[in-house]
Every structure is written in structure tokens, then in C-alpha cells.
């Protein structure tokens, strides 16, 4: 069965979605991530969706769910690399992914997670500073 690899980088997990997500695959990914988080005790999770051209309402919800579940397991999730067209579509659909932290690319996402660990910048609050 088709699976999306989950890579470990230090105490972060990196998921790069490079195939078009169908609903089944999204659910499998969600399960896998949760397993991996509890197994590795990762502090951060980065979901890179820069290769995704279509994010529908279901995938949007799954992304939100993953972030919520990860938070319960004490892991910070950053969704990175969303394309402009995808962002516009999601906003027009009314899915602005509340509660999901976003960054432009993987590097920025890693920075965000590192900064939270050092306690210099709050990842929890949107209205930091």
C-alpha cells in the first residue's frame, strides 16, 4: 500500500507530501504520523506541502486535525510551503486552518520550532510579541 515517508531530523519529524493526496492516503498519513510521534518523542513536526497543487476541504481538515492531535502529544506542527494558488483557494473556501502554524519553507519551519524550544518566541499564540 502507498505510504508517505516520515523522516526524522534530530528531534523533528519531516513529512514531505509529493503525491496528490486522496482521502484514504491522508487518513493513513495521519495514523502514521501519530505512531511516529509517540515512538520518537519528537518535539516538532514539519509538513511540507510545496508539491501539492490541490488542497481540498478534506485535506485541509486533516492538516488541522494532525496539528491538533500532535499538540496533545506535545509536538508543535508547522505546515510549510503552501502555494499562493492553494492559499487563495483555501481562504475562498473559508478554510483558513485556524490553529495551524505556517511557514514559507522547511528552513523557516525548523527555525520556528527551534525558537519555541529556546523559549524566545511563542509558537502557541498567533499574536506573538
Amino acid at each position, binding site marked *: 500500500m502507498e505510504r508517505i515517508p516520515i523522516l526524522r531530523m534530530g528531534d523533528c519529524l519531516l513529512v514531505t507530501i509529493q503525491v496528490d493526496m486522496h482521502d484514504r492516503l491522508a487518513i493513513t498519513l495521519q495514523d502514521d504520523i501519530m505512531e511516529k510521534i509517540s515512538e520518537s518523542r519528537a518535539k516538532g513536526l514539519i509538513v511540507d506541502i510545496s508539491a501539492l497543487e490541490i488542497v481540498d476541504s478534506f485535506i485541509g481538515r486533516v492538516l488541522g486535525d494532525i496539528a491538533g492531535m500532535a499538540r496533545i502529544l506535545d509536538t508543535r506542527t508547522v505546515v510549510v510551503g*503552501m502555494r*499562493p494558488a492553494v*492559499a487563495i483557494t483555501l*481562504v475562498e473556501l473559508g478554510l483558513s486552518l485556524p490553529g495551524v502554524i505556517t*511557514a*514559507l519553507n522547511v528552513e*523557516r519551519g525548523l527555525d520556528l520550532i527551534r525558537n519555541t524550544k529556546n523559549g524566545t518566541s511563542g509558537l502557541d499564540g498567533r499574536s*506573538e*510579541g
Partner: protein
Amino acid sequence: MPTTTSSRIPEIVRHHEEQLLSEWVQRQLAALTARRDLIQDDELREQSRRFLIHLRDGLQRGGLAQEVGGAAWAEMRDLLSAYSLSRARMGFSPSETATFVFSFKQPLYDRLRDEVGDDPSALQNELWAATVLLDRLGLHTVELYQRNREEVIRRQQDELSELSTPVVQLWDGILALPVIGTLDSSRTQTVMENLLEKIVQTGATHAILDITGVPTVDTLVAQHLLKTVAAARLMGAECIISGIRPQIAQTIVHLGVDLGDVTTKSTLADAFAVALHKSGMAVTRNGHRALPAISSGPSSSTPTSSSS
């Protein structure tokens, strides 16, 4: 139609072509609507000559009764569309453009009177046929003129909307988007796309939406602004809205619009300071008063303005 098939207009146009042309051109040049400042006499003469040639060909091929939209008048239509396009660009008014065709009536009527003047009922038929034909050609010209002008206006609108939403980079990672004019759905789309593209290009983490140039904010505009903020957030950039005028602030509160947790600042400068602060940068004033570096001497160890 029996009156038109037996019409003598095609014959008259063929036989008196030179005379018609010279009379017509004279009339056009003498008319009050002549724009000798915009068009050369030679060019006018050339256009009139070509009009007459196409009129002759059209009459031979299609006769009078046929609609001007038909195949017989295709060349004439091309000529008129080129004519009205150039007139629209040169700044002719609609009536000045239409006069080109309508002023041909008088020379043609004169010839008709000379040829069939002794038979009143035939003359009337001929005049009517000529009027219908020239009216249609004239209206066709005006219609094209109108369409060309609308095209020009539409293009200018596009350019204006493109120009009025520039995205500027204020600092490494900080973008500013000064919005000027009213935000409607189509413009919001342009604004959003421009901003998001620029965020990708520059890797910006902060974007300042400056609405000093927005005259009014209603619920729709506020909604559009919030959409832009949400889209930028999805790309990983935080938005700050600046330049909200006192009246607009009142309107927003009265309308019950919830700007959520969007940071707002009164001026672009304030917003810029916030963005710098959040990116971990600071602009410091030079220790000395603003003396030129050269006059302060080579050995000076003045602290320079720095960003850390």
C-alpha cells in the same frame, strides 16, 4: 425589392466617381466638424477615394437592399473599422467620425437630382435607398468607434488596477502593500495574488497592508482585507494593517467587523517598526548628531547605525 434592383445609384456612382469624390472632399474640408488639426488633407482624400471604390464594388456585388452586415460589404466594413479605429485613437468625437459617411449624402443627392430629377417618384425611391444605405454604413462606423473606445477604457482600467497595487520590499523579509482606491472583488484577487507571489519570491515573513489610500471601508472591503491576511498567514507570513483613518475605525466598529487578532497600526512607519521588532531587528540612531562622516575625522570611532 423592385425599387432597388432597378436603382440607378450603382450606375451613378460608377459614372461620376471623380466628381463625387472632389465634391465630397471639398464638403468635408469645409464642414465645421473638419479636424484639419488632426488629419492631413491628403489622408482624408485617400480615405474618401477608397470609400468610394468599396461603395462601387459593394453596390455591384450586393445591391442596395442587402444588409451592410453581408458578404458584399465585407471590404467596406474593414475600411470603416480601420477608419474608426484610427479616428478613436486620434481623438475625434463620435459625430466628427460619423460625419465622414453622412457628409457623402449631399454630393450623392445632387447627382441623383441631376439624373432622375424629372421623375419625382423615382427620385424619392432613389433618395430613400441611398439614405438607408449610408445610414447603415454610418451607424456601423459609430458602433465600431464606440467599441474601440470601450476597449481603450477597459485596458486602461486593467492597467490602473495593476499599477495601483504595487508590492514593495521595505526590508529583508518585510513587504509593504500600499492599497490605493476602493477594494472590490476583482482587485482583491489581484492584490492577493501579487502579495502571495512576492512573499514566495522574497521569502518575506511580514507584510504590511497600508490602507491610507482606501477612501471607505465597508463590510465587504473588510472581509476582503481579512481574506488577504488569512491567505498570507497560510503562506507563513504575518500581516499588519496600517493607515486606518479615524472615520474608518469608527465605521469598522459600528459595522461590527471583527478584525480578529490582526495587528493594526496607525501609520506605515509604526507598522514597519513592529515588523522589524518581530523579525528581531532594530534600527538605532547614530551616537553623534547627524554629522557627515568625512568631517568627523579619520580617527573617530563613532558607532555606526546597525541592525542586529
